């Protein structure tokens, strides 16, 4: 029975892995095809099924009618996403710690209302925020700049960081902070020396969410930029012509997924639960 269960589990996991990985394999093979290979049915093995071509990849690093150069947008995207994610994570973590450890009350407004206020920013559809953001950035002279986009993305990512970290800090016993204070830390010292080192899984999860949302955003990158600044999701639009260049789109898709996949692989080990074992019994 156990052996049967083991085989069944292995088969299921293998099938599921195939299901998850298949789109990437498909994109990878497509990125090495030309127009003829793409229109001649489903083929998978280069040199056997089709003659590989690097046209899809080279078109992403040339300018003019042959393609677009994505190096600039890639760097812009990376800069905006990284800066906005780091700032959101830093501010969000501090805000979440405050919300999880101290009781605030202003009239009828309590901690839960403040937390909801943060989350409510993500409830609104982006289009509602587009015009206010546009007008504010225009007033600041920050339209079509990396600085402007960073500001907007911080506003978008901060609620995610606050939400994830508030939940995470709620799972860290308050006694741990108190213990640190009795051992000679100030309240802020207890946060940095004890709470933060034990919050790595939460920080990683919040950071990953920020990176994913920031990196993949199209709407604000599209509405708040024109010519000077262009982020990766927007630059792909310029690839469209009378013939859809599937080879370039596939190569582009792989390039845009690669950074997040690399980060996920690197930080995966820090996402495990159970780091608080041994803290309190």
């Amino acid at each position, binding site marked *: 029975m156990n052996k049967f269960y083991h085989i069944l589990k292995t088969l299921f996991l293998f099938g599921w892995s195939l299901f998850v990985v298949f789109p990437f394999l498909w994109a990878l093979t497509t990125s090495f095809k030309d127009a003829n290979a793409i229109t001649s049915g489903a083929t998978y093995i280069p040199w056997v099924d089709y003659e590989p071509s690097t046209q899809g990849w080279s078109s992403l690093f040339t300018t003019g009618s042959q393609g677009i150069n994505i190096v600039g947008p890639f760097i812009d995207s990376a800069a905006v996403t990284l800066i906005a994610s780091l700032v959101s994570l830093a501010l969000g973590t501090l805000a979440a710690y405050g919300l999880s450890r101290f009781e605030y009350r202003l009239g009828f407004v309590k901690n839960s209302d403040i937390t909801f206020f943060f989350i409510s920013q993500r409830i609104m559809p982006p289009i509602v925020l587009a015009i206010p953001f546009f007008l504010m950035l225009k007033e600041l002279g920050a339209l079509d700049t990396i600085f402007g986009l960073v500001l907007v993305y911080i506003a978008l990512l901060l609620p995610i960081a606050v939400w994830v970290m508030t939940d995470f800090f709620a799972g860290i016993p308050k006694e741990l902070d108190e213990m*640190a204070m009795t051992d000679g830390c100030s309240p802020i010292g207890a946060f940095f020396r004890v709470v933060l080192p*034990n919050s790595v899984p939460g920080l990683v999860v919040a950071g990953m969410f920020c990176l994913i949302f920031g990196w993949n955003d199209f709407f604000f990158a599209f509405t708040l930029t024109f010519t000077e600044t262009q982020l990766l999701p927007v630059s792909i639009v310029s690839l469209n012509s009378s013939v859809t260049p599937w080879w370039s789109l596939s190569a582009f898709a792989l390039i845009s997924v690669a950074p997040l996949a690399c980060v996920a692989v690197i930080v995966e080990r820090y996402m495990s639960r159970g780091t608080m074992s041994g*803290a309190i019994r």
Partner: protein
Amino acid sequence: MLQVDQLTTADSKVSLQDISFQFDAGNIYTILGRTGAGKTELLRALMGLNPLVEGDIQLDGQSIAKRPVKDRSMSLVYQQFINYPHLSVLDNVAFPLRRQGKRKAEAQSLAAKMLTTVGLGDFVQRRPAQLSGGQQQRVALARAMVKKSRILMLDEPLANLDYKLREQLREEFPRLVAGNDDSIILYTTTEPREAMELGNTMIVMTDGRIVASGPPAALFAHPPTKDAASVISDPPISFISGFVRSGALYFGEGQLAPNNGLQLPPDGPVTIALRPDAIEPGGAFNATIGLSEFSGSETIVHLDFDFGRAIMLVEGIETFEAGTRLSVSIQAEHLMLFASDGQNITIRTK
């Protein structure tokens, strides 16, 4: 010397009510009380973790009520063995020393010595999660003691340990905390035996107040109030309504109670307290056996008298069948009398 004056807090669970007490250096004070009596609240208030509504805390004549937690020269060991999970056992114990400004090597050297004292010299590089419950609590104890604080507070430190470990650590405890005549040790517990065994002075708390204090033996022999008697006694003391009339003591509706060796108060109602060892098998009183349970080498028998319920403690393991009648005697030398306001009015003539 730690002086506490009219300490009052307003915590949502238990509030301290006007607590005043003087703790002298070199003593171990055991604070005994049931769950919710305010023991932890008192330690947290002294530590500065719970705000005071009123009152003052003075250490060697200087008020420390407004000092930050870290500047109070106090250590606290929690009931729940709290350690820093991201640090090794050695760094856990060195942590407070590093905060005191000691260099890493010096802090680690002192921490290693302290860990050897508590029997964890071979576990310095492990993480707390890799230790057993008893070892984790030793780490917490070592971290609290290594600081050499003026006041060491232990909040039911053995409560979460299994029986064997509890017994072992209880035996070791006096050795572990010995050798610092300047320090004051406050040890809270719900167990009367532990409180009497470990403390020079026992403090009894109920409902956020100190209801009795003094040397354990004296307090046990003559608890000042009914509440204190109830908290101190283990197995539980039984309280039975009675009255005094014409120089005689009566249970309940009028059954004559023994009073030899007791100076009776004037006529009126009293509460008669029966310690479990005041009742012995064989005698003039009849009771129905309710429940009998073994407790190590003793048998605890719950008895239903016509005038109320009481518990009898019998040496050795004996079987008492529930529902059967049993004749018992009540020893007057183990009786106590309490007035209607709860004050102990027992006066022995011999």
